[in-house]
């Protein structure tokens, strides 16, 4: 009897959004009540923020054209990890010497600072993320053209 009622409620698809929102809200409340969650002592990709660095917050250290040690899960799978981070094009180096805000322009200058973790050791994620964006734009553009 109760199952019949539940399925009758669920068969109206407009009830599903509030139901899901309610479930999420309950879970978030539970998550807050279960705090604190202890941090692991050795974080996966350790990083220190140096506010005085011109490459802040993407500075992972090391002089240009050298290989710095980067904390990764499987170092044997990423033998070149640490080289890309230290690489700056001459133009980027010129900018880095003169402005405090180069680190905020991570995507604006090719050959500039590339976050090693994003583009090398976790490259598959970086491929999937733009794919999701591509799919979303494809849907949006299809619908837009259909409406027109």
């Amino acid at each position, binding site marked *: 009897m109760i199952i019949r009622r539940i*399925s009758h409620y*669920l*068969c*109206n*698809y*407009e009830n*599903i*959004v509030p*139901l*899901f*929102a309610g*479930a*999420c809200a309950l*879970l*978030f409340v*539970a*998550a807050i009540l*279960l705090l604190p*969650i*202890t*941090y*692991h*002592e*050795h*974080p*996966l990709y350790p990083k220190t923020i140096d506010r005085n660095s011109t490459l802040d917050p993407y500075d992972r250290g090391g002089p240009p054209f050298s290989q710095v040690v980067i904390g*990764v*899960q*499987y170092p044997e*799978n*990423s033998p070149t*990890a640490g080289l890309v981070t230290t690489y700056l094009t001459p133009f980027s180096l010129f900018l880095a010497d003169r402005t405090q805000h180069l680190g905020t322009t991570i995507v604006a200058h090719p050959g500039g600072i590339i976050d090693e973790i994003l583009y*090398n*050791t*976790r*490259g*598959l*994620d970086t491929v*999937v*993320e733009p*794919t*999701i964006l591509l*799919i*979303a734009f*494809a*849907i949006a553009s*299809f*619908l837009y053209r*259909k409406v027109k």
Partner: protein
Amino acid sequence: MSSIGGVPFYILEFGDELVYFTPYTITLFLLALVFTVLVILSRPERQVDIAFGGDAYTTKQILKDEMRFRRFMSIACGLASMGAMVTGDIFNFTLFTAMVGITNVGIVAAVKSPHVQNAAYQYGLVALSATVPLFGAAAVYAASTGSLSMIELARGTLPAVPIIAKALLVIGVVGEGMAPFYAAKAEMFRAPGAPYVIMCSLSSLLIFLRVVEVVMLG
């Protein structure tokens, strides 16, 4: 590792992200692969409406550009499902799951029926909001265990994963795949074009089967 999905036959390394093939994941992977090939090869079914009490019947026409778009979305959905089946990384899994959710919306968004579009819209809202617990769960996994690799989690040397992270992951997958809420999907299935709409159902079933394995790790 051997107790959950079996011993991996093969591990493919993408830096820190390992893709592994165990008997469990390879079965799900092959299922998604076969269905994707079927979607590529098959032509959409054409629904027939029969008027009761008479001999009249009509066949619904599917326009070519609509069919092409839905096939593209179905193939993308199949690829995302395949990725979610074999990935050995929690964050990568959540990304593929989010992609399955958005392609499911895309498969039915091209249909002209307002009823189907309304159901797809409601489903899209759920899929959108489900990304918060989904990626939140991945963040809690990384923060509390110090690793995102499922192989490391399965070894048992890391601290236990908080139960709330697992709960968030499951509700995120439920939202993306709509697994227990098939009412909205049933409305979406009124859309003509059989192999494509079945892809919605199959992909959500597959990601749900995979998340069962994921929450049992660590």
